[in-house]
């Protein structure tokens, strides 16, 4: 597969180039001035992201292209995720400006430059993950994201919890990516190429059992990134131990990137019948994904119920949300993928928002356990109210965006039909009801319990300001979401049936 030549690709690759330049600038600046202040580094990060967004919009083109001889795709789908990642990183960047556990600002901001450079590097890796159309690049970008994430989750060097988190993350990650690499090597052996589209053609004639085994092994790597059962064990410990901005970042960014890669892998690499149909003719993908999804959301929700630490509870809830997302993905239809992408937007808003409140409250001197939130509704009405909005949205109650996202997921399942998907949908809605229980525990602590002390909670101004748009969009998109959904559909257009043939032509 040829795609565009290296030189011709550069224009289409400009968002990533801009990002790389930004990383280098921050690193060099940090070296030259011996420790860049966190304000400067943060500003540079936001500027870099803004420049990357501008580059993305300028070079945006609805027609898909293969870059660098077909290693990377530049299409509306990857643009969608570029924008998603940029927004995530920007929000996390602002969060980190005032987060003692990420950048110890009493200590002269020594780590600021490194922190922001790492965050941008992860963004770069995620961009490549969402765009890769080649097994080799998929693996490399996934590892790139992983390694940067290991460092970020261990960023608080003096905290034992943070170090533990990092180490756990490394060990699980190493095993998962090893298994995935094994699966990829089988695929290469079957197809004789690492190009996803060619693998797709070859896999149609290959031994289905071998293909199934290979892809199941690959799922270990993807499942690890999106934190789905049975590859979720790292998640609660890492989320609890890592600095809060990093936790927020990991719970949204790499998860979204994992889904992007998953969608690309299954849509690109697998023969059509494998995407949907059952045993032996293809392989029971849908069944496998549905089982993963069912177990993931049930386990995530049930395990979240007894948690006392809010970060840990949100970690389990994010496992549950990975289950909901997998549910939409398991349908294998364009509608299901659209629902996944829409849900990712909703999830970005509400999950980052929830973590931001946790961070803001922790910075104000309260703890992270649910007991510390007692009476918050009276001590800090604004923060309690926005946290309530995020949690209600995570539960999936209208009129919040989380409800709309879940609605699309369930709609995709019901429209696909078949006993398995309808049973999965029933399980999904019952899980939503279960999730209400633990989210409501926080609501209860905030509003129903009396505060131990009554003085107001003092929260950093940038956190307070940033919460307003997050909460605002959580409600606004819950009331009117047409533009968002149209954007999602536009980004998916190349996988709609009529566009598929044309896409295959263009990529060749």
């Amino acid at each position, binding site marked *: 597969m040829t795609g565009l030549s290296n030189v011709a690709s550069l224009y289409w690759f400009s968002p990533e180039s801009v990002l790389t330049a930004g990383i280098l600038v921050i690193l060099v600046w940090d070296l030259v001035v011996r420790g860049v202040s966190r304000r400067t580094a943060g500003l540079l990060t936001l500027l870099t992201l803004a420049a990357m967004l501008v580059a993305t919009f300028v070079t945006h083109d609805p027609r898909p292209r293969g870059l660098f001889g077909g290693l990377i795709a530049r299409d509306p789908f990857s643009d969608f995720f570029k924008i998603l990642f940029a927004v995530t990183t920007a929000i996390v960047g602002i969060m980190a400006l005032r987060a003692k556990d990420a950048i110890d600002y009493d200590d002269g901001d020594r780590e600021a430059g490194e922190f922001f450079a790492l965050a941008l590097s992860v963004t770069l890796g995620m961009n490549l993950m969402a765009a890769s159309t080649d097994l080799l690049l998929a693996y490399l970008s996934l590892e790139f994201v992983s390694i940067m994430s290991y460092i970020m989750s261990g960023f608080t060097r003096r905290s034992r919890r943070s170090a533990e988190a990092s180490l756990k993350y490394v060990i699980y990650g190493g095993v998962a990516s090893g298994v995935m690499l094994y699966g990829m090597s089988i695929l290469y052996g079957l197809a004789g190429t690492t190009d996803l589209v060619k693998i797709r053609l070859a896999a149609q004639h290959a031994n289905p059992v071998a293909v199934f085994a290979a892809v199941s092994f690959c799922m270990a790597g993807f499942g690890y990134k999106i934190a789905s059962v049975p590859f979720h064990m790292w998640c609660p410990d890492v989320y609890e131990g890592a600095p809060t901005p990093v936790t927020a970042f990991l719970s949204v960014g790499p998860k979204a990137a994992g889904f992007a890669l998953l969608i690309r892998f299954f849509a690109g690499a697998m023969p059509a019948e494998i995407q949907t149909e059952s045993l032996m003719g293809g392989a029971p993908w849908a069944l496998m994904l549905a089982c993963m999804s069912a177990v993931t959301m049930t386990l995530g929700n049930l395990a979240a119920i007894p948690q006392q630490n809010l970060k840990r509870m949100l970690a389990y809830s994010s496992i549950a949300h990975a289950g909901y997302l997998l549910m939409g993905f398991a349908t294998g239809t364009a509608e299901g993928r659209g629902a996944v992408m829409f849900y990712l937007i909703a999830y970005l808003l509400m999950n980052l928002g929830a973590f931001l409140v946790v961070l803001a409250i922790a910075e104000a001197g309260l703890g992270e356990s649910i007991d510390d939130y007692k009476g918050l509704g009276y001590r800090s009405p604004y923060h309690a109210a926005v946290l309530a909005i995020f949690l209600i949205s995570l539960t999936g109650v209208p009129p919040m965006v989380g409800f709309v996202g879940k609605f699309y997921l*369930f*709609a995709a399942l019901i429209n696909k039909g078949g006993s398995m998907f309808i049973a999965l949908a029933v399980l999904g809605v019952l899980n939503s*009801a279960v999730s*209400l*229980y633990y989210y409501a525990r926080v609501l*209860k602590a905030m509003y129903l319990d009396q505060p131990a002390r009554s003085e107001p909670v003092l929260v950093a101004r940038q956190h307070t300001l940033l919460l307003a748009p997050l909460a605002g969009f959580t409600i606004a998109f819950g009331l009117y979401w047409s533009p968002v959904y149209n954007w999602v559909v536009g980004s998916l257009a190349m996988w709609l049936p009529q566009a598929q043939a044309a896409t295959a032509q263009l990529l060749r």
Partner: protein
Amino acid sequence: MVFFPLLGIPFLFMVPRGKEHLTRWVAVAAAAVPMVAAIYLYQHFDPNWGVKNGNSGLQFIEHAVWVRSFNIEFYMGVDGVSVMMVILTALVCLIAVGASWSVPLERSIRGYFTMFLLLETGMMGVFCALDFFLFYVFWEVMLLPMYFLIGIWGGPRKEYAAIKFFLYTLAGSVLMLLALIALYYNSAPTYLVDGTPASHTFDILKMAYANSYANVPPILGMNFARLVWVGLFIGFAIKVPMFPFHTWLPDAHVEAPTAISVILAGVLLKMGTYGMMRINFPILPEATTWASVGVAVFGVINILYGALCAMAQKDLKKLVAYSSVSHMGYCLLGMAAFTGTGMSGAMLQMFNHGTITSMLFMLVGVIYDRAHTRGVDEFGGVAQVMPVYAAFFGLAFMASLGLPGLSGFISEALVFLGAFPVFKVMTILAATGVIITAGYHLWAIQRIQLGPFNPRWESALKGHDMDRREWATLLPLAAIVLVLGFYPTPVLDTIKTGMGDLVNLLAHGQGAASIAGLP
């Protein structure tokens, strides 16, 4: 009209600190506007407008496209059934604001009324929405304010009651969500209100009149329409609440503050039966016919079981709560009969129960505010010191047990008349429920009002008969109960055309009763 209460919320926050008592008057104003609007609606409502006149029998329609990519419309309107419910909601909410005086000012009264008005908006929206998606959104919007209202301002076990209510209703409504999506995907192509073609629709009326779900292929090995019907029905039955889904109700009613108990019993329960009439019956008439015996059986169980439970209660509020379970059973029985009389009776029972039970809860609130206990056995001879209270109490209890001349009798009689030709044995069984009902009502009156006065309440009750505010809140309800007891025609006239269309639809199946004036 639906959003009027919301407009009141900013005003609540404009009330300066230290003058919190003004918030109550703002809330009164915010609740009075929908009341005026509801009266206007009733005045200008044409009771003879039916399906054959066009617009599927709806009036006062607001119709616009909301979310084009999913064919969701903003579609509201009323027919005879919903108009009565809207009036009931407006009335009960206004009265409940009056009952909210007992909520202490220092417990964030602004938050209280904000939640209260949000709740009113949700309820109004449910009764007016004609787009299923919109209906669902309003339905869910109510849950959260209710959770906080019970959880923050409730009684000693408020937290348990609040989360139980929330979980129960959410579990029911998520099943409804799936049913809603399934109905959407099996609806025929149609046009949105602005003329753009749509492949499916959420429009409740189009689902009812332009679609038949009887022939959709089975899912999960079961008949599609029946499965969806059951999904919807469970969602609504939890709200009614129908045995065996009723266990949230005694907890929620007992722990909620008086005003919220009034709303719960007066309006919220009716949403369950209204939902069945608006959604289950017209959209899936075949499945409804299939399930009618089941509904009737559950109705009878509700009547008897609720009455027996009520008899066993020591807490006056719990007694009233179980009497609600029992009375909603009449609605189910009447609806299941599919006769015009039975349906009208059920509808009238919804309205009457709304007013009577509101009175009951207010009366419980009156004595609780004074004595701070609700034990039925702890009082006695209250009539000697609070004659006016005793008079209202007697009136409300007599109405509730179905004394001829008061409104409860008419609707129960209509239900029995309508149900008897269809379910003979069950109606007879249900009629024995009336005896039990009379039993526990009279027994409660006897224990509280009659007998020797319990000197323990000397200071709390003596000379503290009902004040002017309590008069003002109870008098309109008492007047309605009396008037409808002798002359129920205003209500029956309003609902008759809408009910007639529904009965037609059920009798002849879909298609036959349609389709005058559908676009």
